[in-house]
């Protein structure tokens, strides 16, 4: 091999290597071009082919539809006094979007506000499935002081914000708890019922009970929305654009009188019971209360589990509205129905006299009068005034259960009255057919005797009793109870002879003037009424009534109206385990009547209820003007 050969071979090798390098550079160049063209096509696809779609996504990113909650309508009483109103309040919330160092922030919250870390952590974890723009409410209705505590440590709490929300408040508190009700967040079930096109959205406040629920749609209003430009943390950025203004809920004027509500709840005091007061001429409810009551303000913000549980688990059932949803045997108040039925059917003559020896044997069984020695000779009026059982046993026997039930039904006993309030009960109006359906057993004649004096399975609500006695007060016009001031359902004329109710009314006035209802007497204002005692099953027999354990005492009733000659107010009061109607229930009715007739009663030793009412009247800003529109002639003195 020569040097030339070697050089040639080296050059050949070099040449080949250069050729290969050149080829590889070409490959690189091609790869580079392919890459850039490919990416160019990628941009083409995203920006030209799917550009509009992504532009929309970017808009959705940037713009957030923020709901504008409407202000719920204010609820007034008949005098323009506020029963429920909405005020702006502040909530401390934790933004869940872009939330970093959640644990650190929660722990600092525990330090600054005292909200336990574990509680917040658990609530935050529970919200995992909710949309991220829904914040976690740390504390509701915070004071400015608490806001200041957070704001002064801004850098500790990057995700904590103050949110303005409308808050429902009930100035009269427990006095109107059951009739007004309360609001709460709409339930999943309600959302499901309204369907996807419904007006409600999760988080909306709706009425849960009482008037708040009955007239929810009217009070609720319509939510609006605005478009807000936000950054990736959900913080507002620049001006908001109103999409739709919210429509505030309509105000609602009720027939209620908050002074009577207060007097009634105060008079019921610690007792479990209920009272309904209404204008017998219109059916407008003046006061409707149940005790024990609760403070509806507790529900204005989602309740803490503890206070909720204590309300739900309270054996005295404070959430239950006894005035419309509990039913009791009417006791002797039912004798009003028997009297009407007896005269109307011609079963008895009002003047016919029966003899009461203190007991009577019917169907081989002794039935007792409440007065051991007996009432002696009694006609219908005396029997009603003194509530003689023996007289009505015989009348009931003569009438038979069908006739009794027919007249009870005429007066709307044993079925709902149709008041707007949710949760009204019908009660029980027994008869042979009812019993066959319920138990499969026949009706026993002895049961008619029990029903004759308002005992047995017969059960009515206080509202039904107030309606019934209103019809008596107005001479046969059965009103339809309501709480909205702007509806005026016409009373139903009952097919009764004028004389019949006239006789009953005379007797009922006597009950208060000389009979069992004397404790309801109101000086110059004549009151008419009927006491009643609903028997409660007793384990401890033979003990004097006053020494019975509380839960075995009878339920006390008092129903009536005033003034007896030109009735303006009718009522029914029941006190659970109160004992005698005359001693337990009648004084409660009187204390409410005292407030109702306050300006017609002479200045005497004022009762506590009167003092309270007077203090209330002084704080009333525009009583005269409101009353004029009230449709109730309170100021006119009776002749």
């Amino acid at each position, binding site marked *: 091999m020569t040097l030339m050969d070697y050089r040639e071979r080296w050059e050949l*090798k070099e040449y080949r*290597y250069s050729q*290969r*390098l*050149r080829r*590889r*550079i070409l490959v*690189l*160049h091609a790869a*580079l*071009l392919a*890459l*850039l063209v490919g*990416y*160019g096509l*990628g*941009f*083409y696809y*995203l*920006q*030209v082919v*799917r*550009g*509009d*779609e*992504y*532009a929309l*996504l*970017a*808009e959705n*990113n*940037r713009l957030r539809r923020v709901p504008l909650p409407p202000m719920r309508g204010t609820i007034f009483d008949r005098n323009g006094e506020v029963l429920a109103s909405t005020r702006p309040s502040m909530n401390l919330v934790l933004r869940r979007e872009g939330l970093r160092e959640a644990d650190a922030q929660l722990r600092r919250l525990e330090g600054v506000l005292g909200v336990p870390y574990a509680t917040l952590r658990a609530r935050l974890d529970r919200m995992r499935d909710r949309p*991220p723009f829904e914040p976690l409410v740390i504390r509701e209705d915070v004071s400015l002081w608490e806001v200041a505590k957070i704001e002064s440590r801004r850098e500790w709490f990057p995700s904590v914000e103050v949110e303005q929300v409308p808050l429902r408040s009930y100035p009269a508190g427990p006095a109107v708890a059951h009739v007004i009700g309360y609001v709460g967040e709409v339930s999943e079930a309600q959302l499901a019922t309204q369907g996807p096109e419904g007006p409600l959205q999760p988080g909306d406040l709706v009425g849960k009970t009482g008037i708040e629920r009955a007239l929810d749609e009217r009070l609720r209003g319509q939510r609006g929305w605005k478009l807000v*430009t*936000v*950054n*990736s*943390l959900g913080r507002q*950025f620049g001006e908001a654009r109103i999409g739709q203004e919210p429509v505030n809920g309509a105000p609602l004027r009720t027939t209620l009188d908050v002074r009577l509500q207060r007097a009634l709840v105060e008079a019921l005091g610690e007792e479990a019971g209920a009272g309904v007061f209404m204008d017998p001429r219109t059916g407008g409810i003046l006061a409707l209360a149940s005790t024990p009551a609760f403070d509806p303000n507790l529900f204005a913000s989602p309740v803490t589990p503890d206070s909720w549980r204590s309300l739900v688990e309270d054996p005295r059932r404070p959430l239950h509205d006894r005035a419309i949803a509990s039913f009791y045997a009417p006791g002797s108040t039912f004798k009003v129905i028997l009297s009407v039925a007896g005269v109307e059917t011609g079963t008895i003559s009002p003047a016919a006299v029966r003899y009461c020896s203190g007991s009577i044997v019917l169907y081989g069984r002794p039935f007792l009068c409440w007065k051991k020695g007996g009432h002696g000779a009694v006609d219908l009026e005396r029997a009603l005034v003194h509530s003689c059982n023996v007289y009505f046993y015989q009348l009931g026997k003569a009438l038979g259960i069908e006739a009794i039930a027919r007249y009870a039904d005429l007066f709307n006993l044993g079925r709902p009255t149709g008041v707007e309030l949710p949760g009204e009960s019908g009660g029980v109006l027994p008869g042979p057919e009812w019993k066959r359906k319920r138990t499969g057993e026949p009706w026993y004649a002895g049961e008619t005797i029990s029903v004759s004096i308002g005992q047995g399975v017969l059960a009515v609500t206080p509202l039904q009793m107030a309606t019934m006695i209103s019809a008596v007060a107005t001479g046969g016009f059965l009103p339809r109870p309501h709480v909205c001031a702007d509806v005026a359902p016409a009373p139903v004329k009952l097919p009764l002879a004028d004389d019949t109710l006239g006789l009953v009314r005379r007797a009922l006035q006597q009950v208060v003037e000389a009979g069992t209802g004397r404790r309801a007497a109101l000086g110059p204002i004549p009151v008419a009424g009927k006491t009643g005692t609903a028997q409660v099953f007793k384990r401890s027999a033979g003990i004097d009534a006053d020494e019975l354990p509380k839960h075995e005492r009878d339920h006390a009733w008092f129903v009536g109206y005033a003034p007896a000659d030109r009735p303006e107010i009718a009522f029914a009061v029941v006190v659970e385990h109160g004992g005698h109607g005359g001693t337990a229930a009648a004084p409660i009715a009187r204390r409410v009547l005292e407030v109702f007739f306050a300006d017609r009663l002479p200045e005497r030793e004022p009762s506590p209820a009167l003092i309270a009412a007077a203090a209330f009247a002084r704080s009333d800003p525009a009583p005269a003007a409101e009353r004029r529109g009230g449709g109730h002639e309170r100021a006119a003195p009776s002749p």
Partner: protein
Amino acid sequence: MNGPRLLRSLDLTTVVVALLLAAIGVLAIASATMDQEGRENLWWWQVIWLALALLACLVVVTVDYHGWAAFALVLHGLALVLLIVVLLAGREVGGNRSWLAVGSVSVQPSELAKWTTCLALATYLARRVRAGIGLREAVEMGLIAGLPVGLVAMQPDMGTALTFVPIYLAALFLGGVRWKLLVAVLILGVLLAPIGWAHLKDYQKERILTVLDPERDPAGVGYQVRQSKIAVGSGRIAGKGFGNGTQSRLNFLPAHDTDFILAVIAEEFGFVGALAVLGLFYVLLFRCILAARSAQDRLGTYISLLVLCWLGGQIAVNVGMVLGYLPTIGVPLPLLSRGGSALLATMCGVGLIVNVRSRRFVN
């Protein structure tokens, strides 16, 4: 070669293209950060870094690339020392210990290491490789590239570590590796992948899985990819205009001033803007090829081509990431992404190209 002659044959085009790209980057950074609290001055810093980088570029151009090659291993060793210092005394940002604080500025030695790796591999190829690449050459070059990869991976900055791989593969390819060996290396890589997978952190695995299934975890890892695609797509043809990109300005797009700067450009300047950037990159990389073809010797060719693969690899990964084709690994876009060290290193790389191109005529 003396001064005047260098000036006469100076490859100004490449410098101008690089400066254009850097200027677009500064604009996009300004738009994305100018009205963000505490970040108003970031774009000024980028301008200052650009000035420094231009200066460094001039220094690189001035000294003949044979001179740089003579010190290639020394320089590479220096970079490795810095990488070790970073591991021991570096500043930790976002879980990665990649930063070396010098006074009030921080530098990333890993960026410098990319430059020295290119230089060292090119020098090795030019001096040692005569008759193709055998196993020994592959291993020795593997050491040159592997040491910085290992050190960077320990920071742990997987994205940056990965950018060394195309440089190494390109070196094998250009050095005339036999196809069999190249395939063997690739197979080895595939075989090692499961082991590497096991060493990846959960979030890194998530990122890779998100590419395969973009709807996966839209609030977490998928978020960034999704927001990037929304930013790009919503720019449509003409873009929203300078300073009107809602995705970046309202912070929906994370890392919009660094890894996702191209999404900002695509959002504000549309398809036209994106194409312009891709076009400028093509011109820049084509200049590398021109320099490689016309270089006076192999060393110049290798240097040009390795710098091409370094920049091309990063562009490929970054743009792929912005378009949602590749996992979100923190690889910046050369010349455009905010970051002083990267800009400095890239401009030094550009300096090498200009150096080779300007000295294409043998004395």
